């Protein structure tokens, strides 16, 4: 898809996110809206092996949502891709649903990893990339992390290990929206200078505006080109994002981290997204 097609699509996906969260009466709008552009650009323009009849082939590209609470964004993309039904989005967080509050690979294998306790997804993504490398498979692994999430120690274990194994088939994406439950990341537990930290650990860091589709696609293309040119480095896409992006009253508001919109708020949000 082109950047402008992705932009149009993102409006629809954002309204689905708001709608499913309203229906669920709980969940995380802020981090879903900050991540949706990064996730949809991946699934619609970058990842291979996720379309057509062979889309669950062993050598498909894989996506791990390490910040599991952002899963409404992933469900919206999976519904658009046809992995789950659009009507099914209304079952989010309901008893018996495959759409658990956080990703569950037993109920819904396409989410690749079960996450929700923060800091674990990058290790799992690393294991997927290690296996692909061992098999000589072309499969690439993508892993989206939250900025608050990288306060977890296990992230830095994986950050140290992935360059050792030369995992250029691993592309981590940092959704840097600067808000977490208890406040702004800069106050709760500062992570800066975050790009320097990752590059000093041996990662190739690519900075990008996480809401500009042309820039996002260019960053993904650069990561792919590095691998094709024989780089041994894993890549970190450092995406500057806005918590609650697309809904003015949610943007950069810590309180919208984990609260679902009520019916009137959802209506306003959806109107704003459509007109935006």
């Amino acid at each position, binding site marked *: 898809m082109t950047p402008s097609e992705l932009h149009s699509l993102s409006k629809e996906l954002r309204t689905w996110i708001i709608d499913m969260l309203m229906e669920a009466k709980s969940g995380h709008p802020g981090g879903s809206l900050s991540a949706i552009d990064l996730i949809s650009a991946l699934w619609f323009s970058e990842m291979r092996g996720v379309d057509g009849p062979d889309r669950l082939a*062993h050598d498909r590209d894989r996506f*791990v949502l390490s910040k599991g609470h952002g899963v409404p964004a992933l469900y919206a993309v999976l519904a658009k891709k046809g992995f789950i039904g659009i009507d099914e989005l209304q079952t989010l967080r309901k008893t018996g649903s495959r759409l658990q509050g956080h990703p*569950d*690979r*037993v109920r819904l294998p396409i989410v*690749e*990893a*079960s*996450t*929700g*306790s923060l800091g*674990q*997804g*990058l*290790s*799992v*993504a*690393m*294991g*997927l*990339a*290690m*296996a*692909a490398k*061992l*098999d000589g498979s072309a*499969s690439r*692994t993508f892993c989206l992390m939250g900025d608050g999430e990288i306060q977890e*120690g*296990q992230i830095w*274990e*994986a950050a*140290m*290990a992935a360059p*050792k*194994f030369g995992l250029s088939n691993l592309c981590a994406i940092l959704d840097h929206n600067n808000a977490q439950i208890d406040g702004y990341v800069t106050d709760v537990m500062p992570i800066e200078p975050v790009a320097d930290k990752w590059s000093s650990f041996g990662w190739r860091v690519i900075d990008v505006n996480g809401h500009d589709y042309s820039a996002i696609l260019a960053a993904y293309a650069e990561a792919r080109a590095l691998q094709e040119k024989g780089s041994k480095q894993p890549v970190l896409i450092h995406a500057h994002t806005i918590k609650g992006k697309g809904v003015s009253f949610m943007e950069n508001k810590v309180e919208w981290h984990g609260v679902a919109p009520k019916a009137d708020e959802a209506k306003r949000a959806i109107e704003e997204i459509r007109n935006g």
Partner: protein
Amino acid sequence: MAKATRQAFGEALAELGGKHPQIVVLDADLAKSTKSEIFAKKYPDRFFEMGIQEANMIGAAAGMAFAGKLPFLCSFGCFITGRYDTIRLSVAYAGANVRLIGTHAGVGIGDDGHSQMGLEDITLMRALPTMGVFQPMDAKETSLIMDYLVNEWEGPAYLRLTRQALPDLLPAGADWKPGKLLEIRAAKSTGDRSRKVALIGSGHGTSECMKAAELLEAQGIPASVWNCHSLKPFDDVGLAKLAADCSLIVTVEDHSVIGGLGSCVAETLASLSTHPRLVKCGVQDLFGESGEPEELLEKHGITGTKVAERVRTLLAT
């Protein structure tokens, strides 16, 4: 013959590695101690030195399992199970086909002291849905369990192994079945059921049961010895059967009695309408410490002599 079960594991793993190309092995800077180095030397391409990063190793193993590998991840039992949250979510909840190998079980490791001793690892692993928990009593049983874990078991499993050598105990021609309690010594003196004791061991505990049984029989107390290699799934049916034929059950384990073999037996016994009394020998809600293995085992009442003493005292009252 006597051999540490970690050694038997390392040898079995290297052998299975030849027949099963999907096996990969990860270790966190303890390959010499866990004996995964035997595999590493034979199949360096499928061995991953993960450094001192147990949590990352566990997560990476899950990812490799999702991509079709059969990962064995190795470290001391206490270090692996200490990364509980990662095991709980990335492995167990996700249904990852991972084998977690925890060596250096119990106070039997001796002088390294508490921080290196797996004492609650069975308790922790047993609480996780989908997780199998296995512990061999000797080298032969280690290789039988390894075959089972590679060829039949689906989902995550924890295997608990000793640093110290354990004597060969599996009787020749024994009808060993995965998941089942096995009688490895029948009571010699017969008759008086009211004095009959069934000793149940797991891991190192089973060899202490054998010693205790000899001492008890010498004093005319009939004592059978049963081995439990599968803490989960636990053989409820087998236990009910043996419980019907004795007046006292004694469990012996080099592990906390809270959540270990003693608890497995207690949980099943309590569901029977009538059942014999149970004595749980093991670490009694205490930390470990440095010392000679034999002295520590004695201090915690896990030697054959101590077990026999406890049984005699109990039968006398």
